[in-house]
């Protein structure tokens, strides 16, 4: 029951004052009162390995796009801790619905360097059969739902998926990643409300990286970030420093426990900054200053975490060198191998439209093949394998 008042008195839009949860300072020491995470050294090093792998991968793939070897790429530079740290706190049976900048979570789950490359090069080993642009990864085995470009669509889907997990009585929840820009879509509002009302064990993790392509968050919303909306929907909400892997890990671990104990959603807003361009199609010099970027570069999440590892005596310069060199070599080798492989055969143009190609589609494929036999030079990627 709401208490009564007898004069009009607004609750103002800035009435909430949502704090930010932080554990690690940039120098790698802990804030006063903050706690060490619950993971051991092995896990700590695995998370670091994921971070470094993604940073090297992103750098190489942006380069590959510039060289014209792939049509597109999208890096997560500066935001690696948000996806790696959160994925680290989940269980392998938890489903992941990502937006597109969460390659760190996928890597943590065990997607191999070859799998990354096969997808980006749209070759015949790509799990998505070469149908989507680079970075639209997905893997049933790793509980990572395939990326879809239309923004926000995964948000209500994550509520529905989690509801199914609840009905089946599983010890599993669903995490849903999205940007602060995507949170303006109708699907965000529909999804959070449904998850709250239908009591779905969904962790909604908003990566607030300050921008949606060129649009700064100040032109995206007027309220207190995305976190304030969770409270409006009756959802337990936490804002966290997204460049602080230990804080993101602890926040997600707590969210998972809460979601499963209460059969209820949680909203986490991870504050970070997209250090690179939106994608290889973008040039941020048109909308923000080098100075602003430099300020955020100082808050590098990987460096911060490395400082912590070093102070615990779990990491050395020697190991650092080896790790980077190893990842570079592996990524290069995998890229060369993936690039050499052919695209899927033309038969896959019509598979998976339905569970089985319809007679009508078979007919269209037959006509297409007849045309390709007449003009094989027009279709060099597939015309040599028409009867394969």
């Amino acid at each position: 029951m709401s208490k009564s008042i007898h004069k009009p008195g607004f609750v103002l839009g800035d009435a909430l004052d949502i704090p930010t949860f932080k554990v690690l300072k940039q120098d790698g020491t802990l804030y006063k009162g903050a706690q060490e995470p619950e993971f051991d050294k092995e896990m700590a090093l695995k998370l670091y390995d994921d971070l470094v792998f993604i940073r090297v991968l992103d750098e190489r793939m942006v380069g590959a796009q510039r060289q014209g070897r792939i049509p597109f790429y999208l890096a997560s530079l500066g935001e690696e801790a948000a996806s790696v740290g959160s994925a680290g706190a989940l269980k392998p049976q938890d489903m992941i619905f990502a937006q597109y900048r969460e390659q760190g979570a996928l890597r943590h789950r065990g997607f191999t360097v070859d799998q990354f490359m096969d997808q980006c090069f749209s070759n015949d080993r790509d799990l998505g059969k070469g149908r989507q642009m680079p970075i639209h990864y997905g893997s049933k085995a790793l509980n990572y739902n395939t990326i879809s470009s239309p923004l926000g669509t995964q948000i209500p889907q994550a509520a529905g998926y989690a509801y199914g997990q609840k009905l089946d009585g599983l010890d599993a929840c669903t995490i849903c990643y999205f940007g602060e820009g995507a949170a303006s879509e109708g699907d965000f509002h529909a999804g959070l409300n449904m998850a709250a009302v239908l009591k779905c064990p969904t962790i909604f993790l908003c990566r607030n990286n300050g921008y949606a392509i060129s649009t700064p968050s100040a032109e995206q919303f007027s309220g207190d970030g995305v976190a304030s909306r969770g409270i409006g929907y009756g959802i337990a909400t936490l804002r966290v420093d997204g460049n602080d892997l230990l804080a993101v890990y602890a926040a997600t671990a707590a969210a998972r426990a809460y979601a499963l104990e209460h059969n209820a959603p949680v909203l986490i807003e991870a504050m970070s900054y997209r250090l690179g361009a939106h994608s290889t199609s973008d040039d941020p010099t048109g909308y923000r200053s080098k100075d602003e970027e430099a300020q955020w570069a100082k808050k590098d999440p990987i460096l911060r975490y490395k400082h912590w590892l070093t102070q615990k005596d779990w990491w050395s310069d020697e190991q650092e060198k080896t790790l980077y060199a190893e990842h570079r070599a592996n990524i290069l080798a995998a890229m060369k191998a993936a690039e050499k492989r052919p695209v899927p055969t033309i038969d896959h143009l019509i598979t998976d439209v339905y569970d089985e190609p319809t007679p009508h589609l078979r007919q269209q494929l037959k006509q297409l093949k007849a045309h390709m036999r007449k003009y094989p030079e027009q279709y060099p990627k597939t015309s040599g394998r028409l009867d394969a």
Partner: protein
Amino acid sequence: MSQMNLLQAINNALITAMKQDDKVVCFGEDVGHFGGVFRATSNLQESFGRARCFNTPLTEQGIIGFANGLASQGHKAVAEIQFSDYIFPAFDQIVNETAKFRYRSGNEFNVGGLTIRTPYGGGIRGGHYHSQSPEAYFAHTPGLKVVVPRNPHQAKGLLLASIRDDNPVLFFEPKRLYRASVGNVPEEDYELPIGVAEIVREGRDCTVLAWGAQMEVASKAAERAAKEGIECEVIDLRTILPWDVDTVIASVKKTGRLVVTHEAPLTSGFGAEIAATVQEQAFLHLEAPVSRVCGLDVPYPLSHEAEYMPDETKVFEAIHTTMNY
């Protein structure tokens, strides 16, 4: 006259419209200071201020709902949807609201001042969600006009006409041609008619009908056919809804043959509507069945894009088959 690419022509049309009428307001995702992801709205904010050209939050249903309200209030709302693949969150606002605003109110209210600009089409290695041609969904909606330009000159004249037309217009921009298509464009204000097709090449043997980026393919196929002595009449439909039945029928009556081509999938594509109308109105003149050269009935692919596309060789073959029926 000056040389412009298609993007520059669109930008030039927007500047022309905003200068001429201060009721014109442009908005959408990233269209403000940045000038849009393709830069079609470059310098508009600098020239006309933040109140008349601005970034919106990232919500297509919001953009078009807002645009409906603004247009019904009397402004000329020019809303950009960043890619036509992302128009679907706004489908309800467009189909149930934009299209029916006038009819349902007995013309008490209307959103005739609304223009929705959106890049469409493939050929840019964009996969499912940066390549689609959704014109047929909207062509199934009475109350909307649907316009597709093929080059810079057409783009400026048709966009100015769309903004000033007293009906809501969906303006599909062929993004493959944004920078690739360059031509002479008058600096001054001019309009090209909506609802009127254009015969871009005359011929007596076979009519080839297309719109937007596919016009380039249709024209090349016609040139190829000409080398074999087949004279194609190539028509740019320009407006999908309401479409220029008379020009098409007159041409088919002359040639006795029709090849329609579009990038969107075959089934229920706009070519189907054209084929049905042509057999109804020119049945006894037809020497061969109407031929459709379209995308396959599959989601727009990536690695098989070349195979999916209704390319020049496919259109050429269809012309051949139609001639030899």
